């Protein structure tokens, strides 16, 4: 092969990788860019001038910040509920042999495979049948979110648990650790990354959910509901500020976690 040919071959992967990254991050960078936009009218989606105003007055559009707060509250509560329940379920499914274990595994997986529209509408039917039609709101959204996050938590934690060598726990018991100590000293630290990943996944699923929430929200407005409503009249640029903040938070979390990982490697 010629020298030029070899250079091209060596760098072809990098070039393609660059293109893929560009493809993935172009929309995100556009969100960040538009968060600094100073639009002439609410319906214009072109970049017309740079301003800090959107960042300074994030809560200016009526209802934006309250909907954001609602989404964060629901997201955190749903994450907590789904993570605790899902982790317990995953332990039961991986570590214990009981009647109907296989069937439970399949049933827990089912909500993930069900189209959200179907799930949302049937949940609404369920709530209505339960006489809750007039009282839909924060709690009905939370119940729905915990339900669909649960499947993801179980699947994520189960995978981590299945990869955990059970002789490690036997070794711990052999070294004078009781069942309880073994769980907290050996099992938990090793499964924790899986639980953490499941929690983060739950939060972003809950925060992001529109379809199921749309059926069951009553008068409560979550952030996605707000954006949907605003889109009818023109999306305020502050929505892009929220988007940028979400992106930055996620970026920060990833950087911190890889930082910790690297420090642990070095230690």
């Amino acid at each position, binding site marked *: 092969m010629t020298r030029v040919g070899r250079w091209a071959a060596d760098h072809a992967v990098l070039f393609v990788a660059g293109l893929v990254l560009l493809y993935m991050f172009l929309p995100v960078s556009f969100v960040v860019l538009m968060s600094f936009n100073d639009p002439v009218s609410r319906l214009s989606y072109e970049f017309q001038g740079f301003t800090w105003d959107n960042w300074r007055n994030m809560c200016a559009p009526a209802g934006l910040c309250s909907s954001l707060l609602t989404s964060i509250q629901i997201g955190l509560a749903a994450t907590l509920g789904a993570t605790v329940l899902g982790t317990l379920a995953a332990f039961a499914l991986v570590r214990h042999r009981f009647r109907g274990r296989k069937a439970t595994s399949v049933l827990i997986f089912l909500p993930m495979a069900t189209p959200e529209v179907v799930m949302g509408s049937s949940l609404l039917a369920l709530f209505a049948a339960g006489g809750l039609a007039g009282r839909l709101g924060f709690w009905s959204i939370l119940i729905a979110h915990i339900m669909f996050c649960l499947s993801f938590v179980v699947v994520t934690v189960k995978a981590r648990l299945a990869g955990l060598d059970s002789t490690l726990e036997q070794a711990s018991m*052999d*070294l004078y*650790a*009781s069942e309880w100590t073994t769980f907290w000293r050996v099992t938990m630290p090793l499964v924790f990354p899986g639980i953490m990943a499941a929690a983060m996944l739950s939060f972003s699923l809950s925060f992001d959910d529109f379809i199921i929430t749309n059926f069951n929200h009553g008068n409560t407005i979550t952030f996605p509901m707000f954006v949907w409503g605003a889109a009818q009249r023109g999306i305020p640029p502050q929505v892009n500020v929220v988007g940028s903040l979400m992106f930055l938070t996620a970026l920060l979390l990833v950087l911190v976690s890889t930082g910790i990982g690297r420090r642990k490697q070095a*230690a």
Partner: protein
Amino acid sequence: MTETQTPAAGAQLSLRALTKRFEKFVAVDALDLDVGAGQFFALLGPSGCGKTTTLRMIAGLEEPTSGQILLGGDDIARLKPYKRPVNTVFQNYALFPHLNIFENVAFGLRRRRIGNVKPKVDEMLELVQLGAMATRKPSQLSGGQQQRVALARALINQPRILLLDEPLGALDLKLRRQMQLELKRIQTEVGITFIHVTHDQEEAMTMADTIAVMNNGVVEQLGGPTELYDNPATTFVSNFLGQSNLIRGTVKTAGADVVVDVHGTTAAVPADRARVTSGDVWVGVRPEKVELTAAGQAAGAPGTTQTGTTLAGGVVAEVAFIGVSTQYLVEMPWGQQLTVFVQNNGARDDFRPGDPVDVHWRGEHTFLLDAAQDAHAGEEE
């Protein structure tokens, strides 16, 4: 927890009618076994013979179906693993991946809230020559180093018995030889009773004072390496430890020597080497104990008296040169092929395929086994 601070001393372990059944399969069948204090004891057998299950029952990781495990007189068979003064070196080491080497070794001490951890761990890491690795993670160590950490993590607790479950199985041959000597050195140094499970007969013979050969959940034979090798009690032991030539014969008379008719030739076997003294028997002789001469020539090994047995009419069928020795397959008139190992020390003639030869052996090098046993039991492991 003051008793753990006293110098380590091995304990006498006795298994009484220990049985483990998995559904219908009997893994360990009414096992009786005594391991003396301070012994290096090996449980040797092919996979599935019940040796690992036995070990796991002693550790408390498997609950016996019935029977007793007596440690210094106390029955520990129903105790939780963390209540037993017994530690294990696992086959895959089972080091905690989230803890560094120091914390791995300190784990047992910390669980029992024993103070003064650092000097103890440092001393133990010195013993296994890993002092410099204390802050590393297990994944940063080589297989041999991980193996030694696993050993240190168990030994630091000064258990009354140390259990080793095929601890060298994952190492390459050279490292394994080195670790065998290392383990033996450490055992002599700490004086703890070691129970070592292995399927490698050479490993068991190199290290153990006493070997229990297991097969199908029972002990076939128990004894020192030399005794097991020179005077096996069953065809399984004779084939599983090294190789054996088993030749069919019939007992003619039994006295101080048992006289056997072997395909028309008379062979004498000392009575203490005969497991049966009447009827059909296997006459067993190890390949390196057989002498080969050109047909019609007398056996002439230095110091050999002429009281042995000579079987004439053999023909060399195959020759394999392996450096220190040459392996011959000799076809006998009755169709059986005998294996003969000849040291390449220049004192013997070389033979080629087709050469007519006689085979000779001495009575005290043979053993008699019951002909009802399968001559091929325990082969090819």
